[in-house]
């Protein structure tokens, strides 16, 4: 048992650290984010510039084969890079879908000329990708998509609506799950495409979240034409393609929780008075600080177990689902408790109160989404029950019936 790097890992870490120091900009506040103060266009341009630099240095897709523009490195090297990058102001989520889902799917399923066309510009951040699976009637139940793909000569014509598409408003291409055959059962009539997000008939509308942010979009397709050469995988093979896309996420080791949450609670509790004494002296407050640590450090340690697997060349298993399950709810509870510390002053929007409070209020407004996006608590518990504990799957009545006959269709 040893938390230290192997000599090879240490060498790679040193190399990464040197490169980041030379090229990146360190965070100065815990809640500082990339591109603060820039408008959207400038922020996007800055992000693309960073990604180009990162790709040129061979850090954009460490585990990809060299032939595809990657580094041919190990998953552990990827993790080390991410750990080191975490201290820097980098454009977070913008390229995550490109590198993590879109391009790997292209790599696996597209014809050589498409790979040549898309991989390098995607890696360098010149083109950004999104993922178009979820629909208003097909969220947790992705197999229920109803966006229609109809063959028309060498093209397909797409009509329908997607939802919860991160970054659709600035993306160039997307991987699109459609239903091309309504007579087959649910998961057997699906086909996957590459779609040009700037094509005529594609309309993107932001979804405003309760936090006031708009990270997600609805995307509407009206008679959008896609050449058959942009099809990924066989006709009606979309389910399998989608699973391969999601498999790419397996190396990601689950949810996480800011490492400093309990320290923030300590700081806030020292500023608040409960019954004329500092709240930090209340045994209940102290207990909550301890519990916050148990959850935060626990998630960190579960991830360390996943990294151990990666370090040994294995993939972390479905048990990593517990990290998101613990993290998202803990974030909600800790943030709510932080607000409660202030009593009636907790009524204030924390713009009025400053740093730590604003941070907690952001977490509090973001937590309901964090518990849902990427798998609800309920879906994650099913994953643990079925894939870790081996309990039976839910009773399904919709598996063998032609999709058009399903009541919900």
């Amino acid at each position, binding site marked *: 048992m040893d938390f230290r790097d192997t000599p090879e890992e240490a060498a790679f870490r040193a190399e990464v650290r040197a490169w980041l120091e030379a090229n990146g900009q360190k965070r100065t506040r815990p809640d500082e984010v990339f591109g603060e103060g820039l408008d959207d266009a400038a922020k996007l341009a800055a992000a693309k510039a960073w990604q180009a630099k990162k790709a040129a240095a061979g850090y954009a897709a460490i585990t990809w084969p060299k032939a595809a523009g990657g580094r041919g490195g190990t998953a552990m090297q990827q993790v080390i890079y991410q750990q080191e990058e975490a201290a820097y102001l980098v454009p977070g989520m913008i390229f995550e879908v490109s590198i993590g889902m879109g391009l790997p799917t292209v790599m696996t399923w597209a014809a050589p000329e498409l790979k040549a066309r898309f991989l390098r510009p995607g890696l360098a951040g010149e083109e950004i990708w999104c993922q178009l699976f979820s629909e208003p009637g097909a969220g947790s139940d992705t197999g*229920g998509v109803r966006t229609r793909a109809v063959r028309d000569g060498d093209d397909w014509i797409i009509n329908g609506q997607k939802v919860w598409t991160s970054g659709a408003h600035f993306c160039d291409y997307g991987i699109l799950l459609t239903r091309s055959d309504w007579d087959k059962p649910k998961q057997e009539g699906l086909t996957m495409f590459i779609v040009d997000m700037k094509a005529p008939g594609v309309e993107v509308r932001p979804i405003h979240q309760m936090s006031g942010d708009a990270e997600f979009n609805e995307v509407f397709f009206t008679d959008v034409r896609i050449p058959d050469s942009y099809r990924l995988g066989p006709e009606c093979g979309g389910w399998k393609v989608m699973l391969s896309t999601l498999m790419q996420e397996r190396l990601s080791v689950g949810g996480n929780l800011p490492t400093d949450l309990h320290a923030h609670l300590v700081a806030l509790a020292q500023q608040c008075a409960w019954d004329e004494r500092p709240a930090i002296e209340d045994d209940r407050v102290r207990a909550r600080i301890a519990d916050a640590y148990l959850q935060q450090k626990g998630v960190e340690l579960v991830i360390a177990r996943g990294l151990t697997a990666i370090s040994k060349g294995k993939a972390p298993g479905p048990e990593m689902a517990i990290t998101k399950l613990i993290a998202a709810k803990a974030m909600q509870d800790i943030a709510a408790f932080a607000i409660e510390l202030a009593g009636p002053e907790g009524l*204030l929007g924390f713009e009025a109160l400053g740093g730590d409070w604003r941070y907690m209020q952001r977490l509090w407004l973001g937590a309901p989404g964090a518990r849902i996006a990427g798998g609800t608590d309920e879906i994650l518990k099913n994953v643990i029950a079925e894939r870790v504990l081996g309990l039976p799957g839910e009773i399904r009545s919709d598996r063998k019936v032609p999709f058009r006959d399903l009541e919900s269709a």
Partner: protein
Amino acid sequence: MNFDFSDDQRLLQDAVRTMLAETSTSQAVREVLEGRASHAEAVWHNLIEMGAAATAIPEQYGGAGLGYLALCLVAEEAGRHLAAVPLASSFYLAAEAIQRAGSEAQKQHWLPKIASGEVVATAALGSRERYRPAAPLAFDGQTLTGTSPALVDGGIAGLAVLRIGDDLVLVELSGTGVSRNPLPSLDPTRPLAELRFDRTPAERLAGANGAAVASRVLDGAAVLLAFEQVGGATCILEATRDYSLERKAFGRQIGSFQAMKHKMAEIYTAIELARVHAYYGAWALSSDAPELPRAAAAARVAATRAYTVAAEEGIELHGGIGFTWEMDCHLHYRRARHLGQIIGSEHAWRARLADELIKEAA
């Protein structure tokens, strides 16, 4: 044994519910949420006109004189419909303080104005928890100077009752030297402002012990707010139930999944626990029973818990749509927190409940 409201009280509740269903719509609430209105004017107008807001103000002071039980049911409906109105500030807090500590002249002057809606009032009666050191606020017997805490409805109030030490001080906000500083609110449907005074004329409420009156008024408010919380929690539970019957996934109504059924059963249980404690608090409040401090604290803790759980899990059970701005789920999420903090958090009230129980056991 009759642990329920009377038919007359229920009739009033039905009338208020019908009115609120028509006027306190999502759209009306969102006018305030998005800053286009300071409060839901039509709702406020109707609550006043029906005499529903002023049920607990005696007739000789311009109220309906129907007592606290009726007001509890009005509160439940206000909570259910997310009413964006100064009901708590004006009626649970300010009017109550004046009624309990005011001189006859003070009561005759102010209560009819509050009851008729001519004046919106607000109050800061002290709390066991605070973040910043209390702002300096000095009362010299005739004028007030300094800054108040953040006050709900401070932006539209014409009158405030402020606790300064053991005094309760009444200050007219149209007086000289008053300025208002709007503050951002975690629940923008209930806006906040702090008041700044510069030698503003003010007077002491006549009653002897301001601290004791404040404590008594806060107990009553805890009960009334518990009804708002129970109403709000019931609303989000019903919305969640209805959505779960409508929405399908995996070929089934999502409400047929046992995980969802059981979570809704747990929310229901939390709400019913809160409801009976709120009822018990209503009984103690209306009968001026010595059990009030214990009953009020219990109602507050249980109701804060219930609304918090209902709002958090209500969003969760809606899935993705639940955290969009367009759905009303987040209005409950915000309101639950607002109501849970407005007179001190559940932790302060749980400590108070424990104090009472330990005192009784001695």
